[in-house]
């Protein structure tokens, strides 16, 4: 069919293939002399503020939006886009906006922009990932609906009773009030989260409906605006807004380059094609000091790693058994040898990232003391076999095995680490009350308050209290702290609650996270905050 000349055809095909491979492309490198930088991120799942719960998206939103509240070096909240945030009773909060701010499309920023955005985020059927942030606002429950016959059943959930939060009221164009369903002293800090950004009128095609394509070319009120659209899996480019009313960044633009793999990003960082990597992968930590020298840095982060004792497991019902296990673990050895110093040993139940953190609240129970541990263990008839269950997709095997070895040596018992394929599998087993032994868990805070650790992790029915710890006295103290008049009072209550945890040992605190970041020779003044975000107002291009 091709006659006698298959060679010509093959040559032609080769030429076409090479041409196809060669064309397209074009230079991706930013001009090295320019005043804009490249920051590596993971592909964001979403860029609508109320739907952004991971750090890649949050980093982009930090450039596009000017938040109501930000946090200072001590993680205390201060007003940014808000002129003032006040409350007499911690229940009704009045937010006054600074005048003169506009969205990137020229719209004036008014109170309605906040109210509309938050209502959208809180409305159940919109399925926004960060909707739980609005839970404290009055009327939240009416925006949700329950499926009458459960998730698996055929019936559909009815439409929620209301479409807007009763707790949000506009006073005038630059003022609105937020009424909470119960007083909460830390509300100001909560409003620092990305879910509390405003959305312009242009975002909505109809009331309560985000326009198609808005997410890919999102319009914010921040110092940078989107250049072009979100190029999925490739990059998001932002450029400086001319005449921005707020704090003006020193750089002219940022290219958020999307990496699927942290190791690939690290290669680009070393080669100088990426200016900031906020989290250097653990595989590269050993070589980072040599590759980057002074440009390899550390700063505190909010992550907290621990293992929990399932309450349904009888073998750990004795608190002394729990303490003995905790004392058998040499945290320092694990952070040094397995994490190469990228995490720090934990001896408290909340992270150093929050106000009110005290060192070593866990006391002697979190100190490595194999002899005392062994004594406690035998006195209290600890089980002859311990299991630690972890999710194998999170890279936990190495340290779980190390921890088991320490337990084996100190207590002379059998200890095994059991990997479940995914975190969801682990949770399913816990829900079914299957014997899983200790459960590996971790927590990243949403806002810098002790409550954000105490509530979700240890309170009865807390969103991440998978091990079922419940102590009414503790719950009360957390609630009292939230309802306290001042933040100082709140912290005192929360610290008292933490002391209960030290007595009950529902979990073994293991490690606090750190940002291990690196930057290129091009930039200076690089700061990475407790949310693992680059501070875009401080960073500069070296002249």
């Amino acid at each position, binding site marked *: *069919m*091709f006659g006698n000349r*298959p060679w010509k*055809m093959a040559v032609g095909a080769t030429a076409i*293939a*090479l041409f*196809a*491979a*060669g064309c*397209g*492309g*074009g230079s*991706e490198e930013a001009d090295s002399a320019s005043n804009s930088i490249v920051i590596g991120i993971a*592909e964001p*799942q*979403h860029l609508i503020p109320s739907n952004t*719960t991971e750090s890649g998206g949050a980093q982009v939103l930090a450039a596009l939006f000017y938040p109501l509240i930000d946090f200072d070096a001590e993680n205390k909240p201060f007003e940014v886009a808000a002129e003032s945030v006040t409350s007499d009773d911690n229940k009704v909060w009045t937010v006054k906006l600074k005048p003169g701010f506009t969205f990137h499309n020229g719209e004036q920023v008014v109170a309605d922009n906040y109210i509309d955005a938050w209502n959208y985020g809180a409305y*159940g*059927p919109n*399925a926004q*990932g960060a*909707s*739980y942030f609005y839970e404290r606002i009055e009327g939240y429950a009416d925006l*949700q*609906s*329950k*499926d009458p016959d459960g*998730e*698996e059943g*055929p019936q559909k*959930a009815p439409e929620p009773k209301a479409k807007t939060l009763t707790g949000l009221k506009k006073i005038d164009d630059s003022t609105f009030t937020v009424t909470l369903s119960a007083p909460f002293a830390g509300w100001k800090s909560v409003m620092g989260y990305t879910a509390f950004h405003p959305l312009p009128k242009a975002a909505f095609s109809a009331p309560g409906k985000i326009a198609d394509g808005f997410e890919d070319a999102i319009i914010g009120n921040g110092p940078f605006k989107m250049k072009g659209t979100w*190029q*999925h*899996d*490739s*990059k998001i480019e932002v450029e400086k807004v001319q005449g921005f009313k707020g704090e003006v960044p020193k750089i002219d633009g940022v290219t958020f380059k*999307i*990496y*699927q*793999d942290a*190791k*690939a*990003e690290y*290669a*680009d960082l*070393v*080669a100088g*094609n990426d200016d900031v990597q906020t989290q250097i992968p653990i595989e590269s930590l050993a070589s980072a000091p040599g590759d980057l020298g002074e440009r390899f840095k550390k700063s505190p982060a909010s992550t907290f790693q621990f293992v929990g004792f399932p309450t349904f497991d009888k073998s750990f019902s004795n608190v002394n058994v729990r303490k003995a296990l905790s004392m058998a673990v040499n945290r320092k050895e694990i952070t040094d040898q397995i994490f190469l110093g990228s995490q720090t040993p934990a001896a408290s139940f909340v992270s150093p990232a929050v106000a009110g953190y005290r060192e070593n609240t866990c006391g002697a129970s979190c100190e490595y003391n194999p002899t005392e541990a062994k004594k406690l263990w035998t006195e209290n008839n600890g089980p002859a076999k311990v299991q630690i269950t972890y*999710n194998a*997709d999170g890279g936990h095997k190495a340290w779980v095995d190390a921890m088991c070895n320490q337990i084996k040596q100190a207590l002379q018992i059998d200890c095994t680490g059991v990997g479940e394929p*995914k*975190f*969801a*599998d682990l949770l*399913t087993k816990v829900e079914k009350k299957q014997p899983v032994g200790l459960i590996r*868990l*971790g927590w990243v805070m949403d806002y810098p308050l002790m409550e954000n650790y105490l509530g*979700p992790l240890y309170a009865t029915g807390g*969103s*991440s209290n998978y091990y079922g710890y419940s102590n009414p006295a503790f719950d009360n103290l957390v609630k009292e702290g939230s309802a306290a008049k001042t933040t100082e009072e709140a912290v005192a209550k929360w610290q008292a609650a933490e002391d209960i945890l030290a007595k009950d040992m529902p979990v073994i605190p293991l490690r606090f996270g750190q940002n291990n970041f690196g930057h290129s020779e091009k930039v200076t003044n690089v700061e990475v905050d407790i949310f693992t975000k680059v501070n875009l107002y401080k960073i500069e291009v070296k002249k």
Partner: protein
Amino acid sequence: MFRYIVRRLLQMVLTFFGATFIVYALMFANQDDPLQALAGERPISENVRLALTERYHLNEPFLMQYWYYMKGLLTGDFGQSLTGRQISDMMATAWPITIKLALMSIVIVAVVAITAGVISGIRRGGLFDNVTLVITLIILSLPIIVLAPLTQLIFGIKLGWFPPTAGANPTFYALLMPAVVLGSLVLATELRVTRASVAENLRSDYVRTARAKGLSRKRVIGVHVLRNSLIPVVTLIGVDIGGLMSGAIVTEGVFNIPGVGFNLFRGIRTEDGPLVVGFVSILVIVFLVVNLLVDLLYAALDPRIRYE
């Protein structure tokens, strides 16, 4: 010939439906909680779970889910991934780059493997043959998961000859290193098949005849030997095209190329059934079309082969 092609096309339709059904069923069987897999370790609030479950028909039985999916597919709608992106958009960006990468690898591999294979075949037992033998052994024994980061470290970072990552819109030059790494998956086998086939054909009767007729050595090898030796190699290359497209998971990850391999990996990890099946459907079509082309190429290479 025409009837043969029509028959093959009809078979392809059946294969296509069978393959997508199996993949969908496998994804479904492996699925325990895609929403949790998507959220990682974060708790998902009840209302989010409810709304997403309904949006993606997660509460319905397998056959219903498959029906919804196929209904969309047949009307050209690949549906939405669990993060809400149109899968057709994701394919439009992922496929061209992976095709580019795979074509480059194939061309590089074909040129290198056929040239080196022919030379080793002619000079069996010589120095060149032994050296290539050792090299192919090393390449065969090095898994790509080791080879890819190693190449990146040496040529991308230490020597700085190539950009360490390619990105979404790479230049020809940036894609060269990943293409070579990806090609090494199949280079060794193709080289050895060429060598064996050339060596065998050199001893065949028609080559002896050709030589006896006094044809030049160049013509004997170039036309008589090579043309017959290429039949098994072409088969192999055809199969490899499909293999390289799906086998790009590691290479695309290491060199940060958001192509098909990466999307498949992401889909499997987040238990995103529609995403995986969408990409696999196209992979199946690529496999089928390439295999058809390979079969048709036989006829061009070997005049004895005729399809009815």
